[in-house]
């Protein structure tokens, strides 16, 4: 196993190193799901994960399907209690709702309340953060402009296309002006223009010094956007480090690095 917790070859970028305060701390995290049938042993989704994500960095959380990425994100968001170990956001235990006060979350393939309009949806989520009325209204205006939904703000969400739903999802993730943005497959199902838009928004958030935790199978995108990555397989952390350092060390692009680390070997040529 090749776990490198910021050792020689995987030093974080200078900007990140300058601010070494960990926004996310995961300590010995174990996530188990009970067996479905009687007497079946539990499924271990995450096996003793240790990880720190620092303020201001864009962090890619990678792994094949069923590797434990979503389980880890679900623990961070308080959806799933850890079986063992602990996770903290800004020093607060993730099981406390207050830990989510400064988080924005864009789930993968989700739908929103179809009986609401875009602005009603954002108003509802904004009120959950106790944002003042005037501030909330101006934030709704700017976010709807940012995600190009200003013209469709009065339309019910059930009339939205998949791309529009993904964009309203991004807007709701930004409604509280979050310090930490957790994006689970943010460009899944988007057309090239939508992907570009999402990438631009992530770049903008990075430049504003926000932390972005990014789970994606689009490795080219991860390589472009992320400062550091972690690769997880069968619940175990395989590698963590700076993208540039990994690319330099392995002398190949991120996709090939990923395949090498997860142990994929191409079939022999006939």
């Amino acid at each position, binding site marked *: 196993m090749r776990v490198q917790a910021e050792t020689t070859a995987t030093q974080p970028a200078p900007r990140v190193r300058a601010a070494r305060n960990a926004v996310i701390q995961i300590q010995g995290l174990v996530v188990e*799901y009970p067996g479905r049938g009687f007497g079946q042993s539990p499924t271990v989704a995450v096996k003793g994960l240790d990880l720190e994500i620092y303020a201001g960095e864009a962090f890619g959380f990678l792994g094949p399907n069923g590797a434990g990425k979503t389980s880890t994100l*679900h623990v961070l*968001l*308080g*959806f*799933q*209690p850890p079986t063992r170990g602990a996770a903290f956001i800004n020093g607060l235990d993730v099981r406390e*709702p*207050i830990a*989510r*006060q400064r*988080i924005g*979350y864009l*789930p993968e*393939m*989700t*739908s*929103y*309340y*179809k*009986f*609401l309009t875009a602005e*009603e949806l954002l108003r*509802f*989520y904004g*009120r*959950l*953060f*106790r944002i003042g009325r005037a501030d909330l209204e101006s934030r709704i205006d700017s976010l709807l402009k940012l995600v190009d939904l200003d013209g469709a703000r009065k339309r019910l969400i059930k009339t939205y296309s998949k791309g529009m739903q993904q964009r309203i*999802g991004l807007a*709701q*993730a930004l409604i*509280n002006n979050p310090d930490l943005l*957790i994006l689970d497959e943010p460009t899944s199902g988007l057309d090239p223009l939508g992907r570009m838009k999402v990438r631009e928004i992530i770049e903008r958030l990075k430049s504003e010094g926000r932390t972005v935790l990014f789970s994606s199978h689009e490795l080219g995108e991860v390589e472009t956007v992320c400062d550091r990555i972690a690769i997880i397989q069968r619940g175990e952390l395989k590698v963590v480090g700076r993208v540039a350092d990994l690319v330099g060390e392995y002398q190949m692009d991120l996709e090939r690095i990923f395949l090498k680390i997860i142990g994929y070997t191409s079939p022999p040529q006939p």
Partner: protein
Amino acid sequence: MNAIFCLSGIVIKELYRRKDFYVLFVITAVITLMMGTVNFFHQSGIVRYLKDICLLLIWFSSLVIAIVTAARQIPAERESRTIFPLLAKPVSRWQVVAGKFAGCWLACGLALAVFYLFFGAVCGAREGRLMPAQYLQAFWLQWGMLAVVISMALLGSVVFSAPSANVTICFVVVVGILIVGAYLQKLAALQPPLTGCLLTLLYFSIPHLEWFYAVRERLIFDQDLIGWGDCVLATAYAAAYAGLFLCAAWLVFRRKPLAA
């Protein structure tokens, strides 16, 4: 409280933007109006039977709205995955349960108020007198009973995975309590000791919704008001059962996996 208010607002908005509520409302309104205006057999005394039927219809409609609305709240959130962005906000699971309850209860209260206003207006026009205190008391006690039913359906919605199963079970339980709840103790006396003991236990553990149902007879037979002290006790009884079911719902939902 802020999260609870926000969530209840969403529940109310959803209910009033769904067509099935209006269908039920229009059917109830039309039948009430027809019953109120048609003079069957030229008998003025027949108005009592019309009131009976109309109130039965109001009870049935409000139970349908309460159970169907409450039973699908949390399963629908899980199925459509809207629960994920919701719980990613600083909202705890007890606030979700409380918000869903408050929304369903308020929405049902609004629907019930409209039903009673309509029924009161039709009966008032027919009888030439209004009984606002009686109607207010009947409305309040029925609304209290609906709190118990809604919290029971919410508990069912976190226990059973399929909303349809929950709706069916809730209907069977509520109708069962309304029909046989009062006779359980008498039935227990006729049974062998073990069965009798179980029936007695059941009698003392179930919420006696039939006590609230009895209030409609006071409207039908133009009886006096129930004492306000009894009304407060009945409200406390409903609140206690609703609180009990909501606590149980929260305990189950607290550690429930979110994936549908």
